């Protein structure tokens, strides 16, 4: 089953809609709540990343028999140094974004901690692609 969502950059009022929607599907499937929590935390962080940093993005969640793959593809400035972005506490978020309670620099490391597979690729000036997989069991 494939679920697809569009995310608009800068629209914090909509941030969280994708994770809420995916969460609902996982609950209906009867997935272990502990696993749902990991998916939701990772996806919420990733979704907020698009809102906070990119112009727009597409989230594709694919559910197979063993787990869920979530690919977040955004059009945006890209990440100059992924290595640096993976350091806990590092953030390039603007003052406005931080004032809204986001941008503490815990996003990417937190996503990685919650995912079983984690791949991030980025091209400066083009965009970022995040690909995570989480097993149901």
């Amino acid at each position, binding site marked *: 089953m494939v679920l697809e969502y569009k995310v608009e950059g800068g629209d914090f009022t909509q941030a969280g809609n994708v994770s809420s929607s995916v969460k609902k599907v996982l609950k209906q*499937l*009867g997935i272990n*709540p502990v696993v749902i*929590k990991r998916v939701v935390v990772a996806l919420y962080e990733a979704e907020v990343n698009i809102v906070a940093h990119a112009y727009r993005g597409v989230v594709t969640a694919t*559910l197979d028999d063993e787990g869920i793959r979530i690919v977040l593809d955004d059009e945006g400035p890209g990440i100059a140094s992924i290595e640096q972005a993976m350091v806990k506490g590092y953030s390039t978020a603007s003052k406005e974004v931080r004032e809204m309670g986001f941008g503490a620099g815990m996003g990417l490391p937190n996503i990685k901690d919650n995912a079983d597979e984690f791949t991030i690729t980025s091209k400066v000036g083009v965009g970022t692609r995040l690909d995570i997989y989480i097993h149901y069991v």
Partner: protein
Amino acid sequence: MKDEGQSKYYRGLEIREDVCVGCSHCMKVCPTEALRVSEGKAAIHPELCIDCGQCYRVCPTRAIRVVDDDFQKIFNYKHRVLLIPNLFFSQFEEKMEPDIIASIIGDMGFTEICPVEQGVDYLIEEMNNYIEKSSDKPVISSYCPAVVRLIQVKFPSLVDNIMTLLPPLEITAKYILTKYEEEGVSLDEVGIFYLTPCAAKIAAIKDPVGGYASPITGAINMDLLYSKVMLAYKQKNFGSGNIKNDDNITSNAIRWSTTKGEANATRGVSLAIDGIQNVIEFLEKVENGDIEGVDFLELRGCDESCSGGILVRGNRFLVADNLHKRASLAPWVNPNIKDYRRICAPYIRFDDVQPRMFMKYGSDIKVAIRKMEDVRNLIKLLPGIDCGCCGAPSCESLAEDIVRGGKEVNNCVFMQVKNEKQGKLKVDEAIDIMEKIWGKKYDS
């Protein structure tokens, strides 16, 4: 009693089929979509019902019944104790003083009354400790049973956040029972009854969470007792009732059942939210990991908390206001706190709450995913206006019901019209379908 099959869960509400007219008002307000209409009657899905009582409020024919205990049951016991929420007294006019009400209750046959919130002062000590030490923040109060059940059903990933400390009701009951035991009374002779402002508390007594068995003998309907007290008062039929009344109560305890009653009495960052839709909205955020820096959540199913309980006759705002007024005059220290500590400390904790996972599409994940895809495809066909004419609360829930079996696409009036136009469905067939859902509502 009409149910979609047997359930392992006890419920505080049931539908009286002989009274139900199948109007679907209840179906529209149920926060867990636990209600459907078929053959002209509403039916509760027992796995999903959380006893919040929203359906009870809107039922125009009073077809929804609170499953309380028969009043006569109290006479099976020599010692008949009634645990009374303070808000009960706050419903009456000022000149009906608690002493008068107590003596009327004595006339009815109770031998002792006690404020149910008496255990609050000891609970506050335990809560502050618990909240400070808990690694699952925010800690969610175990006070409102409708909220606890809501979390089990709709927010399974938050069950570990539920505080595993007994609510005041159970603490006070344990205390009183132990006091009798210490006086050498046989416990078979003691009946502890709870005067309940809602259905959820009944379910919580009969079917508690966390591997706990309540010592409370039964639940008395507050609505019923209100009428009995009013009747006796108006007929000036009171005064002889001899009743033991340990009415020690602190201001924290009186405020407990009001909104912010817990939040204001505990240390740390606390937030109080009342009203089931408000609670759902907030729990969504908590589940997303979107709430930081909150230590404790006081969540109540009813607007204005227990003052807005479905069995409370007084206006919820006035009852809550009255409670605050009385609390401001009450003492701060519970003289029995040491006894409460001694007696209740071994019992105050219960086991972790388990989620009530409801496998909508069965336990085989492969099949479940396929069925969910079918649901998504069906939703695209349906009009999306959630009119409820199909006997389900939303287009989405109809799609789910179709895939799970028992419903058909032509239950939707829009699909009927479309299929009639295309010659796939006759008018008579459409009428049959509607009558199967709603019963005969008109002469055909």
